[in-house]
């Protein structure tokens, strides 16, 4: 790019920062998720710790320029350990007036605001509900370091001569914005350049345009007088090893694939498209060379039923959905409980009830997982703490399912599913084998008895096709031992208790609960699922300030770890922050007769660390 009106580069200062929170926001069609994930990738590759919060509307293309159509991607990158995507934003990139309006409240005082000045024309202003141009509002902008950039024009200039239509040219402006951000934070664009070349290998002119726009943004940062300072965020001191970036849904797909390998079985995934779980289906459908078979069923009911069918034959079966789909699966999950077949059901939770908030996170399906089936229908429940933990919890869920012959529920959530973090690539030695036993002969003098149990109350799993072991399963109550249909009142009570006790027996096979921070004292904060990062950061901050607070983050929700009841008695107060109206807190109160208090938020957004600190402090 020509550099005639440019201040010499050496006038630019570089300042060092520990940590930065940046948010890209714009119209749904502006490519903000792409820009955000590329920035995440280069930051991770550079060595920062990262945590992300993609936040997008349920509509694929809400009316262009409207408030409802704003899509955002927040990234926290740091030279320290990062637990959350960050409370407040240091740098906000707003591609249009609607994005500015819906996001500026989160920009901290003194923060950097970069706007695409070209989109602040009357039409878009009106759609965003601005009566006058906010870029002329000195009171509004006074607290911030504002950079009005003619991104549309500059992007068109950058791709000039490539023969693109104006529309195609304008679609490159996310790369221009990205280039500017790369300059601002001294990012090496190589991973992004490689990604663009590969992604658009069949459309070289689009690849070149995006690369030129990216370079244009970098050049602009270098040359404009608007930016005097750029920032360096040194690499984090992560544990040594090889890393990659991973999202929760990717990690689940990897985890289940690994579980199947470790069990030496094929993996069957049956699912129906639903936000925010569909990416698990997408990831697994690319892994057929691992023997993974994916089945996109006609509905959620069929997906669950097909998983039950596959489990019956002796293969590893999983399904995934979100709340509305889990409701539909309840019937066939009950069949899984009755027939005592192993399978994993993933619920990537989102805001409810009903269709609710499809793209927003919530933790409101715990009671659904515990009790959302007819009859006494217990099953084990586990929940990952972070995106990377999804990899491990998937294997753990499968282990429990197979070892105890039971459906297992895995409660992820939208925040974990779409959020990304650096993931230390495991070595194969880190993975634990999953023992699968199929009988090949009669287990009694009376032939094969499908409900003859071992000491943990687990029944045998005969593989279909095994000679001599033909047997019938079904949803009707059965006689213990034989599995024959049985309506006897005492048998039903016995079987109900056996199914409950078998699930309770899982507690003996899971680790004891650990507590971070104070091991006894004033307050124990108990959390589960995707709130891990925010709660851990809050408790860490407070314990460093000398507060007597401990943190127990539960990965096992049913049964609870066997020492949890005892841990609770060591603290005066129990606080349970949840993104619901109080579900785990009810289970804890009922299980341990403890006066646990809830701290609840139900806005489709994760906790901020600051609000948790305040909530804890106000109760100490």
């Amino acid at each position, binding site marked *: 790019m020509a550099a005639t009106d440019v201040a010499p580069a050496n006038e630019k200062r570089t300042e060092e920062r520990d940590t930065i929170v940046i948010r890209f926001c714009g119209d749904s069609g502006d490519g903000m998720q792409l820009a955000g994930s590329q920035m995440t990738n280069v930051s991770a590759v550079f060595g920062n710790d990262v945590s992300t919060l993609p936040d997008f509307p349920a509509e694929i293309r809400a009316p262009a320029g409207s408030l409802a159509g704003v899509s955002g991607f927040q990234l926290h990158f740091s030279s320290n350990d990062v637990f959350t995507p960050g409370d407040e934003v240091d740098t906000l990139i707003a591609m249009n007036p609607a994005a500015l309006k819906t996001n500026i409240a989160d920009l901290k005082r003194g923060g950097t605001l970069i706007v695409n000045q070209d989109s602040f024309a009357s039409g878009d202003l009106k759609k965003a509900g601005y009566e006058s141009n906010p870029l002329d509002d000195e009171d509004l902008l006074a607290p911030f370091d504002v950079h009005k950039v003619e991104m549309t024009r500059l992007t068109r200039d950058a791709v000039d001569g490539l023969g693109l239509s104006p529309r195609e040219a304008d679609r490159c402006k996310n790369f221009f914005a990205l280039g500017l951000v790369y300059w601002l934070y001294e990012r090496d664009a190589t991973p992004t350049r490689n990604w663009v070349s590969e992604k658009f290998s069949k459309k070289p002119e689009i690849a070149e345009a995006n690369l030129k726009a990216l370079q244009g943004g970098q050049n602009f940062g270098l040359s404009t007088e608007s930016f005097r300072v750029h920032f360096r965020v040194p690499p984090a001191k992560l544990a040594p090893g090889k*890393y990659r970036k991973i999202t929760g849904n990717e990690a689940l797909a990897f985890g289940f694939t690994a579980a199947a390998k470790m069990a030496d079985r094929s993996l069957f995934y049956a699912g129906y498209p639903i936000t925010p779980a569909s990416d698990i289906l997408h990831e697994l459908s690319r892994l057929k*060379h691992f023997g993974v078979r994916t*089945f996109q069923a006609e509905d959620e009911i069929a997906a669950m039923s097909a998983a039950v069918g*596959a489990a019956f034959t002796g293969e590893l079966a999983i399904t995934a959905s979100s709340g509305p789909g889990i409701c539909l699966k309840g019937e066939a999950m009950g069949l899984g409980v009755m027939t005592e077949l192993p399978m994993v059901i993933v619920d990537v939770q989102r805001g409810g009830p009903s269709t609710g908030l499809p793209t927003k996170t919530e933790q409101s399906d715990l009671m659904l997982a515990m009790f959302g089936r007819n009859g006494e229908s217990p099953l084990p429940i586990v929940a990952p703490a972070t995106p990377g933990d999804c990899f491990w919890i998937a294997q753990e869920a499968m282990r429990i399912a197979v070892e105890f012959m039971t459906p297992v529920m895995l409660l992820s959530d939208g925040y974990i599913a779409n959020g990304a973090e650096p993931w230390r690539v495991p070595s194969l030695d880190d993975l634990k084998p999953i023992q699968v036993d199929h009988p090949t002969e009669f287990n009694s003098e009376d032939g094969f008895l499908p409900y003859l149990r071992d000491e943990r109350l687990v029944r045998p799993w005969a593989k279909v096709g095994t000679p001599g072991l*033909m047997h019938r399963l079904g949803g009707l109550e059965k006689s213990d031992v034989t599995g024959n*249909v049985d309506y006897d009142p005492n048998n039903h009570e016995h079987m109900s208790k056996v199914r409950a006790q078998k699930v309770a027996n899982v507690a003996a096979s899971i680790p004891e609960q650990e507590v971070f921070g104070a091991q006894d004292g004033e307050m124990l904060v108990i959390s589960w699922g995707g709130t891990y990062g925010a709660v851990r950061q809050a408790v860490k901050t407070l314990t460093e300030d000398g507060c007597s607070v401990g943190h127990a983050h539960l990965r096992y929700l049913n049964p609870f770890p066997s020492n949890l009841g005892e841990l609770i008695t060591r603290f005066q107060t129990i606080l349970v922050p949840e993104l619901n109206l109080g579900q785990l807190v009810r289970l804890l109160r009922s299980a341990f007769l403890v006066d646990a208090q809830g701290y609840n938020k139900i806005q489709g957004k994760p906790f901020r660390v600051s609000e948790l600190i305040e909530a804890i402090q106000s109760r100490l």
Partner: protein
Amino acid sequence: MTTELPVLTAKDFASDQELRWCPRCGDYSILAQFKKVLPTLGIPQENFVVVSGIGCSSRFPYYVDTYGFHSIHGRAPAIASGVKGVRPDLQVWVITGDGDGLSIGGNHLMHAIRRNVNLKIILFNNQIYGLTKGQYSPTSPLGKRTKSTPQGSIDNPLSPLSVAIGSEATFVARSVDVDTRHLTSILERAAHHNGTAFIEVYQDCNVFNSGAFYYASKKGVKEDNVVYLEHGKPLIYGADRDKGIRVNEGNRPEVVELGSGISEDDLLFHDEQADEPSLAFLLARMRHPEFPEPMGVFRSVQRPVYDIALDEQVSEAIERKGPGNLDELFNSGDTWTVE
């Protein structure tokens, strides 16, 4: 190494369970023919799976000594699709009824057929909900008085075969519970079909809908009320084989008397392998008493089979990429090393 398969008989496929259908239920005959056919197929006993939903007919798996699954209402085709999804080598039979398969499970039935999963589906049609003691079903005729329709049903019924044909079925057939030789031959044909085989069996619920199909099952009556389909042959029926079906200029079927200027060559010739399903559909819409109802194989064509194709995709992926390597998977994408 090849091992000689033991010679099995119907007795080998009898389970130790006491049959709990009502006395003289049509289900007994279907079960008996089924147990007769299975040993003739040259498939090891342990490689059969019988999956059912809920309803009287769905008790079926308990009475057959194979791997079996008495599942939940309407879901048998979906459960069976899961079985075939991982084990295309098994022969899987689905037992369903008019309520189970066409009402609560209509969606699963339609999609299993559309995919052409290699399932053998027998739909016992008795035009009534028997297990819940006598409500009208999706195949009950208009005006039918039942416990839930004291003034007569106002629900228009559908034809199971029309649903199957509309779902792009590759094999569609119909038989009658007590027509033992015909039923046996249809079960055999279905067993050998590659893809979803859909069979409707007229089944008498002698408690809640007795005699609904006497016109098609009683000797001395049925001859004038059913026409047996044979591939490549004209549609002739009647106790004296003097009546036939002709397609008129409006492309509608009509009943004609043979002789007096109408010869066999004027009749509709059955073609179960027709490219288009329109003939099968026309036959499926021939209803008593206006027409004799066709029995036999309406349609039998070849199309790629879902579970085989799924298996092939796995093999092809392994051939192309090599067997999955976890280490490579974990290290895919951009990685970096922290010293």
